[in-house]
């Protein structure tokens, strides 16, 4: 028990050591951890209730603008809600959509990819056909149409984003399985008489981890941007819930005079996406043995 713990620690230290050399990856790691912390700690760090309206203080500019006050550091929106608090709570929406949608998509994609790659033949042909077909869809439109069918709500958004983005996981998993199953250790397992399902679960699946974790990271950023667009169109998370896309959409109406109302939520989406993408890049380099030697 003790020895595994020590091993884990050294591995974690190794990750940090490598990330220290990969500076952009480190920036990504820090930004992502920050995002997660903000999302978790929202009730403790937000200065105001994100739903509290104070109509007398509407359109207070951010502190660096003329007329801004330290009372509302990022200013207030069109009904006088504190923008900083809404941005902080918005991180919760984005992170939950990112985590849930990616979990749904990855689960569907990995299972289908494993089946296609391992069993080949007709199973592979059918699954590959579905992958190709789903990939041919303008995915935003599919998501929009599905939201129109099921109704716009927080839960529906991540379900829809989950069931429309699985093909990428399936494709990556399938390619990886095709590669891994030719490896000597899989042949050895087969020679020992291990069953097909057991081989998938104990030999192939653990070795998929590296590629899948990279896809998951990059897709999280993608899903967060997609959610914000759906919410921007009014097809996503519904007001008054503070989602970054929804705030952007509300701010758009006042963009000419009060540009911060649209730029601040946009910057939040941007920093979340860049952080997660940088982390994904770092992980990709970390898992790629050829590049690991160079960093």
């Amino acid at each position, binding site marked *: 028990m003790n020895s595994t713990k020590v091993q884990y620690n050294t591995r974690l230290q190794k990750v940090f050591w490598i990330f220290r050399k990969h500076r952009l990856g480190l920036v990504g790691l820090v930004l992502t951890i920050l995002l997660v912390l903000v999302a978790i700690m929202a009730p403790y760090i937000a200065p105001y209730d994100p739903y509290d309206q104070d109509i007398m203080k509407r359109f207070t500019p951010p502190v660096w603008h003329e007329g801004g006050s330290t009372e509302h550091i990022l200013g207030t929106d069109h009904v006088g809600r504190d923008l900083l608090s809404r941005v902080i709570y918005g991180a919760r929406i984005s992170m939950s959509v990112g985590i849930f949608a990616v979990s749904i998509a990855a689960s569907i994609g990995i299972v289908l990819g494993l089946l296609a790659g391992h069993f080949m033949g007709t199973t592979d042909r059918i699954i590959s056909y579905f992958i190709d077909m789903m990939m041919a*869809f303008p995915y935003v439109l599919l998501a929009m149409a599905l939201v129109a069918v099921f109704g716009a709500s927080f839960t529906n958004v991540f379900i829809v984003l989950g069931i429309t983005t699985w093909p990428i996981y399936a494709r990556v998993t399938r390619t990886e399985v095709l590669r891994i199953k030719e490896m000597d250790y899989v042949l050895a397992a087969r020679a020992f008489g291990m069953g097909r399902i057991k081989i998938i679960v104990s030999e192939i699946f653990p070795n998929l981890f590296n590629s899948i974790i990279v896809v998951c990271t990059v897709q999280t950023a993608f899903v967060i941007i997609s959610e*914000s667009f759906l919410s921007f169109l009014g097809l996503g998370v519904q007001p008054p819930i503070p989602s970054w896309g929804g705030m952007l959409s509300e701010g758009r109406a006042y963009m000419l005079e009060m540009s911060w109302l649209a730029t601040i939520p*946009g910057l939040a989406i941007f920093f979340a996406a860049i952080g997660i993408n940088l982390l994904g890049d770092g992980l990709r380099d970390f898992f790629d043995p050829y590049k690991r030697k160079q960093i």
Partner: protein
Amino acid sequence: MVGYFLKRLAMLIPVLLGISVIVFFIMALIPGDPAQAILGSYATAENLANLRADLGLDKPVFQRYFIWLGNLLQGDFGSSYTLNRPVIDEVLDRLGPTLLLAGTALVLCSIFGLLIGVITAVKQYGWQDRFFTLIALLGISTPSFWLGLVLILAFAVKLNWFPVSGMFAVYGGGDLPDLLYHLALPALTLAAVATGVIARLTRSGMLEILRQDFVLTARAKGLSERKVIWHHAFKNALVNIVPVIGIQAGFVIGGAVYIETVFQWPGIGRMLVTAITTRDILLVQGGVLVVATCYVVFNLVADMVQHLLDPRISI
């Protein structure tokens, strides 16, 4: 060669059929009665029944699919109830602006993406590599609809260099300079994201090629570095980059939905956003089907170009 093209073309049919099934059944799932939506809440039961029969809504859903498909094959996409005109006319009117926007963006992102990709690969780990890799990543991480808003704010509102929205000026517009003037900002915004993707893939493709023996041979022969990179390495890397550009063509068309909404560009994306919110089912079905077909065709063209560049590649 012809055999390959025909085979590839035949593979389109099941994909397009599958897409039509998904498009049809998603829209058929939409709750609510279209007849009621058209006639309003004061319609009599008799009128509703008549309209349902007219629209074919009284038939089972599978039968409706085959009727719809049969009509599609004859070029009849049905009629939009909000616009009161044939779906195909509306879709074709909107397709031009979308293809113009997406095409311009695709040309821009291919040029920038390839250039950046080659530069970063050649100067691997140099400052150029770091700088452009970061820029490419910034592009990928920026929500394009927000970038559009920011660019409008900066270049249209503050600096007044470009128009805020639309495709032509309301008064006195309509000529080519006017179109280009309106096209610049949305095309650049749309290209920004795709440039990052193409640049990254070009970089990794070039790096792989630059490690190969024939590049070493070319250098050993004493060819100029420029010739080695552009004539030998780039040409070979292109084989793997072309399909990526094909996929990007699809993404750019999908991305046009974001950009058209922000810039009020009269394309198919904006039409679909409106059609989805007004539940104009036939218009959505027709529009999505046409966009998906464009996507599939772009990929096909990319595959064919790849095959022309390297005839060894088969299905």
